[in-house]
Every structure is written in C-alpha cells, then in structure tokens.
C-alpha cells in the first residue's frame, strides 16, 4: 500500500476501534510489513503533533488514539462519569497478581493475598480490567483469570519494559540469596515475553 493511503487507513482503523489495535493486526489488514507500520505511525504522530486534541499512543503493544491530557476538563464536562474510576489498593493488588501470575485462579489470588478476593475480582471483571479465559486442568476445573486489554490503557503501559519484571520486584538483594526459583517465575517470564501483546490479539478475537 502506498504511504499516503496507508496513513489514512491506519487513521481510520484507530479511530473506529477506539481502543488499542496491535501492530500485527494492522499489518494483516493492510497487508504491509510491521516495520512499515511502525514507520507510518511515527510519521502520523509527527503530523498530528500539537495540531490535534488527540494523539497516537502506544499501549499494550499496540496503538490507540488518546485525548491530550490538557483537554480532560472539557471531556469531563461532557462525560462526568469518565473521571469516576478510582482504584482501591486491594484492586491494585489483585491486578498485580493477575499481571505477573496470569493465568491465575481465584483460589491462587486468595492464597497470595491471604484474604478473600472474590468481591474485588467481580468488580474488576465488570470493569473489563481482567477476564476469564479458559479453565485450569485439575479438581473442579476453576476458571483462569487474565489481564484484559483496557488494563494497559488505564495504567498507560506501553509494553513490557514499562513494568518491572518479577525478578526486579521486591528488592534485588533478597532475590540473589534465594535458593532456587519461586514457582511463579516460569509463568511470570512467559507473561513478560508475550503476555502484553497476547492480550490485544485475544481482545480482537473475542470481539468478533
């Protein structure tokens, strides 16, 4: 596709989506290699720079159109409920567990927090910040919880480099003295390598 045409196509896609679209998805739709997509989006970003009330943002391993923070007072006058979302520390805890341990069951979340989390989980599900995806093999086949795409927008997480790895958390000195890996390490690594972009792919599929 010609560059000018590609620019307009990406613009249209981002506008109509209203949320993040992965680079891979755009590349498939436009039949253009991913490097070319990044290049074109960067050009678009330059063009839009300071001329528009919106800008193209990298979120969760994809792109989306976001409003510039300067205009939030006006937006909140139009949609006062957009400013309502507050986050309790227990919700942030459950999200942290889901982020690093996904896929994870309710029982596992309860075990790590040491308190019942079903209320918080229900609220987070309702807000689409986490989602059920599959079931764990084993007694009772509990449902598995994963991070959902809006999570990356809410926290402004561009990609994995925006969050510390599981190893980096908790202070390094204890970690070096630890004998062997904690059981969660394997899952956490998996999450870090492909978790973020996976979410965008999944989101697209479930939409259709």
């Amino acid at each position: 596709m010609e560059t000018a045409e590609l620019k307009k196509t990406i613009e249209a896609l981002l506008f109509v989506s209203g949320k993040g679209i992965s680079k891979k998805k755009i590349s498939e739709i436009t039949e253009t290699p991913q490097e070319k997509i990044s290049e074109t989006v960067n050009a678009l970003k330059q063009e839009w720079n300071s001329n528009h009330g919106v800008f193209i943002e990298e979120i969760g391993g994809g792109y989306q159109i976001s409003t510039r923070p300067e205009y939030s007072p006006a937006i909140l006058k139009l949609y006062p409920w957009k400013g309502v979302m507050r986050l309790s520390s227990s919700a942030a805890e459950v999200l942290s567990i889901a982020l690093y341990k996904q896929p994870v069951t309710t029982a596992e979340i309860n075990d790590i927090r040491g308190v019942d989390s079903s209320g918080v989980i229900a609220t987070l599900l309702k807000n689409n910040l986490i989602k059920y995806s599959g079931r764990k093999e084993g007694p009772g086949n509990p449902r598995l919880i994963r991070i959902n795409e809006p999570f990356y927008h809410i926290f402004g997480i561009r990609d994995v480099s925006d969050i510390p790895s599981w190893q980096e958390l908790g202070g390094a000195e204890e970690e070096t003295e630890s004998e062997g890996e904690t059981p969660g390490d394997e899952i956490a690594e998996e999450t870090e390598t492909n978790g973020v972009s996976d979410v965008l792919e999944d989101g697209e599929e479930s939409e259709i």
Partner: protein
Amino acid sequence: MNGKNYIVRLDAFEGPLDLLLWLIQNNNMDIYDIEISKITAQYLTFIGARTAELDAAADFLSMATLLMRIKSSLMLPKESPEYQEAVEQQRDLSEKLMEWKKIKESRGILLEKHQSRKNFFRRDEPAAVEIDKKSTLSVFELADIFANLIRTHDKNFDTITGPEIYLEDVKADILERFKSADEIKISGMLQAFPSKLYLAVLILAILDLAHDGIASLRQEKPFAEIYLTSINGGKQALPREENYAQEVTYGNS
C-alpha cells in the same frame, strides 16, 4: 521492637503475611533467613496485645500456630522428620513472604501509574463503575437508601410465602402410616419435609392425636427418638371425614 512507641492497629495490615513482613523489615531481617523464635515471639506479643480487634482474625491466629509449630520443631534433633518438615515449612513461608512483598511493590507502582493516567481518555473506556467501594457506601447508607425507596414508592409489597401445610393433612398422613405400621418414628416423618413449619404442624398433629386417644407417645430417655404408637392399631380410629369435622371444631374452640 521500636513498635512499642506507637500504636499500630491490626487492621492496618492486610493479613498475617503483611504483619509478618512488617516485623521482619522492622528487625532488618532477611526474608530467606528469618530468626524464627524472635519473630514468633514478636508476632505473638503483637497479636496478644490486640485480641480485642481479633474478631475476624482467624487468619492471624492460624499464622501464629504455624510459627509456633515451626519454632518448636526446629528445637528437635536435625535428623527427625519433624525438623525436616519445619525447615520446609519455613522455606515455603519465606517464598510466600517474598511473593507478597513483590505484589505489594507492584501494587504501589500500579496505583502511581493510575494516578498519572487520570487525564488520558480514549473512546472505548472501561465502564465507569467505582472500584474503590470502601470509600463510597456503608451498609447503613445502603439501608437508608432502601428505606427511602420504600417510603417514596408507597406501595404494598407482596409477602413471599412458602408452601402451606395444613394440620389436617399431617394428621391424615399419620393415620395413613398407621395402616402399615403400629409405630412411627417422628424423625422419619420429618425427613420427608425438613422445615420448621412442618415440624411445628407435626407436633400439633401428634398432640392432637394423643389428646383424641388415637395415638400414644413413647420416649426411652430425654432427647432420644420419640415413637408414635397407634392405639387399637389405628383401625378403630374415627373415619377421616369425622376426624376432620372434629378437628375443625377443635381448632375453632
């Protein structure tokens, strides 16, 4: 412990792990090298001073038991299976503590990120439901709202009732059973319809039958099974229609 100089409430901690982590950090201990006897003593002192707050704190007590078990098992000879088990339990505890510490740190990062994202919007926004529920409505506020709703919608609410149970039906059922058995276990009758209402009506029915000389009651000792025995084999009992008639007058008088 320098914690003695100020009051720390138990509900400041989100769970026993949180309290344990706090104690360990206060002592500048390593999570993977806990001085178990020192920490156990401090944990118990901390919990002990706050028993009044402990209504919902079974988790805190269960952690206390675990700590004491590890501590006592570690005093046994190293070759004993209890000692080995305690070492393992302590390692598990360390790992759980580390996990909790990491999650706590990540929680802080997320809360900070969320704060700085407040003014960024996109078209597809997650539903605007408040996640911070604690700060909004208490049970009492909810009760007020409910009371207001009832007051403003000045309507008669329907009462939801369970199935109706008639004294006559229960008595007829007992008489029916007398046809095949001379003695009926009362607990057996209750099993068919286990509800408080049925039990109440059943007792009335039994008392009625005993009063009318149709059945007698037998019990071996207090709280034992009660048996209902038919007098004259139940066959000489009054025909059912008359029974009903008698019942109606009895009930109304």
